[in-house]
């Protein structure tokens, strides 16, 4: 067993180093982005966070915005798990593992964004439970550290276990997997809820201090996360022998229509409360939607996000549109753009602008922030690519303990 596992590891490593030209080109491109990001990050560590455009007034920016968005992507993996396991709906079951791998990649990116955002990365160990001094249960950030890492561990274990079973040609033990997969549902909800509470609990920031922030987080995540998966599933269908049924994709699209409707409704509810009651808390929405005292940086982004969201909702709502591949993919891109802008620009920055003393500091990410972020996204894509590269032949039963070696020694190896 242990020897088999060792074999599994080494074979996996061999598998990911082999591929065709396109595979190498893609990996090379990602490595280049990672190199650029690393260079920018080294500069940031040497000079301090002053190379970002964050300042005391807007103390969180692009990094934390991306972090928030990606927690949503990670949480959205359960959009596949719920129908697959709770309703025992077969067409999706085989692709659940893809959702879990997406969650792992997203979580690695999340942790990366937190790491590059802290001023003293050399002191990261202070936040490790038992080794450092975690301010738990008081600090929501401490909660976040715990739930994110547990969720990462859980997904990593399930994925590894399922693949190892496929590799050794055995059926997985359902009694072990099912409870873990079911556990991942509340865990996924909890990671995004805790991340929402991170902002939600701050009375100093009225824009975040709203009871529907966590539901809004979940609703937006449950439409943006699957949007990535829908495109990915189509790519995999074309490039590998993985069979993913149309109806699985359309079912996910249908679920997305509901969550998007809910997302838009919650956003409207929030906007109504602020704008109609017109208290002084309105200034944050004003800054976001209409500009404040002549500062209109966020306005085009805010409206682009809203319009993309509405357009995508219509595309997903009408069955005739969502079963048309072009429109479906367009809808995916639109929803992705909408939520990415909303979580990045539309949540963090207006939450901090105007600042606690009423000052408007106009924040835009600097080159360093963009380069570092690109590097982290590249790391996430790299992790995901490598996992897929090893997982697909195993899932197809093409690559097992007995058949693996032969394939690796064959000249034309690797499916991607």
């Amino acid at each position, binding site marked *: 067993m242990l020897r088999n596992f060792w074999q599994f590891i080494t074979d996996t490593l061999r598998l990911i180093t082999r591929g065709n030209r396109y595979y190498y080109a893609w990996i090379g491109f990602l490595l280049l982005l990672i190199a650029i990001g690393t260079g920018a990050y080294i500069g940031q560590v040497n000079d301090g*966070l002053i190379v970002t455009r964050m300042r005391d007034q807007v*103390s969180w920016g692009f990094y934390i915005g991306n972090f928030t968005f990606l927690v949503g992507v990670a949480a959205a993996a359960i959009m596949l798990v719920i129908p697959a396991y709770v309703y025992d709906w077969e067409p999706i079951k085989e692709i659940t593992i893809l959702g879990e791998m997406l969650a792992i990649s997203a979580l690695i990116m999340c942790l990366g964004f937190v790491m590059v955002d802290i*001023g*003293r*990365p050399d002191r*990261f*160990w202070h936040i490790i439970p038992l*080794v450092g001094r975690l301010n738990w249960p*008081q600090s929501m950030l401490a909660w976040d550290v715990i739930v994110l890492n547990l969720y990462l561990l859980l997904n990593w274990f399930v994925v590894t276990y399922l693949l190892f079973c496929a590799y050794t040609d055995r059926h997985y033990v359902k009694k072990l997997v099912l409870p873990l997969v079911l556990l991942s549902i509340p865990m996924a909800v909890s990671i995004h809820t805790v991340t929402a509470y991170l902002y939600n609990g*701050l009375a100093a920031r009225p824009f975040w201090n709203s009871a529907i922030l966590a539901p809004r987080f979940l609703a937006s995540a449950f439409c943006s996360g699957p949007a990535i998966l829908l495109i990915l599933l189509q790519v995999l269908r074309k490039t590998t022998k993985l069979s993913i049924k149309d109806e699985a994709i359309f079912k996910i699209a249908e679920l997305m229509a509901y969550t998007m409707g809910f997302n838009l409704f919650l956003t409207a509810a929030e906007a109504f409360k602020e704008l109609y009651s017109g208290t002084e808390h309105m200034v944050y929405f004003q800054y976001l939607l209409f500009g404040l005292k002549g500062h209109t940086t966020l306005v085009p982004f805010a409206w682009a996000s809203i319009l993309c969201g509405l357009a995508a909702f219509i595309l997903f709502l009408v069955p005739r549109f969502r079963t048309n591949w072009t429109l479906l993919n367009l809808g995916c891109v639109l929803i992705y753009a909408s939520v990415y802008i909303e979580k990045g620009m539309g949540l963090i920055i207006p939450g901090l602008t105007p600042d606690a003393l009423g000052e408007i500091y106009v924040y835009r990410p600097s080159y360093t922030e963009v380069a570092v972020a690109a590097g982290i996204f590249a790391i996430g894509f790299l992790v995901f690519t490598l996992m897929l590269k090893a997982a697909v032949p195993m899932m197809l039963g093409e690559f097992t303990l007995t058949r693996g070696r032969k394939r690796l020694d064959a000249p034309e190896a690797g499916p991607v």
Partner: protein
Amino acid sequence: MTAREPIQPAEGCASSTPGGGSRREFLGTAVAAVATTLTGCGKLSHEEFLQHNFRELSKDEVRDVIARLEREYKEKYGREVKVANTAPLPGVIFGYALDLSRCIGCRRCVHACVKENNQSRSPEVQWIRVLELEKEEGVNLQHADQYYDPAEVPREGHFYMPVQCQQCKKPPCVKVCPVGATWREKDGITVVDYNWCIGCRYCMAACPYGARHFNWGEPNLPPDQVNPDTHYLGNRPRPKGVVEKCTFCIQRTRKGLYPACVEICPTGSRKFGNLLDKTSEIRYILENKRVFKLKEELNTQPNFFYFYGV
């Protein structure tokens, strides 16, 4: 001057931390090298890397840490810098009152504070922000301007409101810190352990008064401008990447002196004293003047009071 004693650990924190030094040391040493390489902090010493939260250090460890810091400061600034560790005075909770009817917005307090507390000069970190407000609007922060620059203050139709750390009884910044790098001392002063802060800036998002400031770059403190009379939890020179804040001049007030801003104020707008002392000026003000707290509705319960003296 009060004898140097280690800061008393706050209730239930020293004992609640699991694990002893040995495991920490082991794990710490293991990652120290990695962290040093990763972060490009060539100067990061093992002792500094492994130093634990200030409240968990023994008397001996505190002595070592302070000796190390004094040595480092001497190397860096070429002069003796004393790092005190004066404990809170028993029976003292500090309170601050600011007379809005007297403040003229001259900002002498801002600059005295920068000098006294060894803030970075470029970019200059200011713990006190003086807001210029319109009399017609009252205390409405959306109409506040902290970059006013008239030929003469006070300006017609305006009044001035200095804002600094309000030393809350229920500080949101302390609640949110993920590593316990900031806490409220027994005399009501909220402090930061600059050697434990990871620079996540969650406290800055949580503070309703904009009182916390981050060292975005390496603090620029010219050696000839260093105030050598420092406190571990107060005005000792800070590293980059950590948060800092007003500590009511802990290095002065625990020796019975006024904070630098109180001392410099030309109009006597700033009042400071012991809230537990019934005969103190601060108690007189609270009992006899029209007092209000900034953002009272957030229930942070500041020990910083604004009042109208006339």
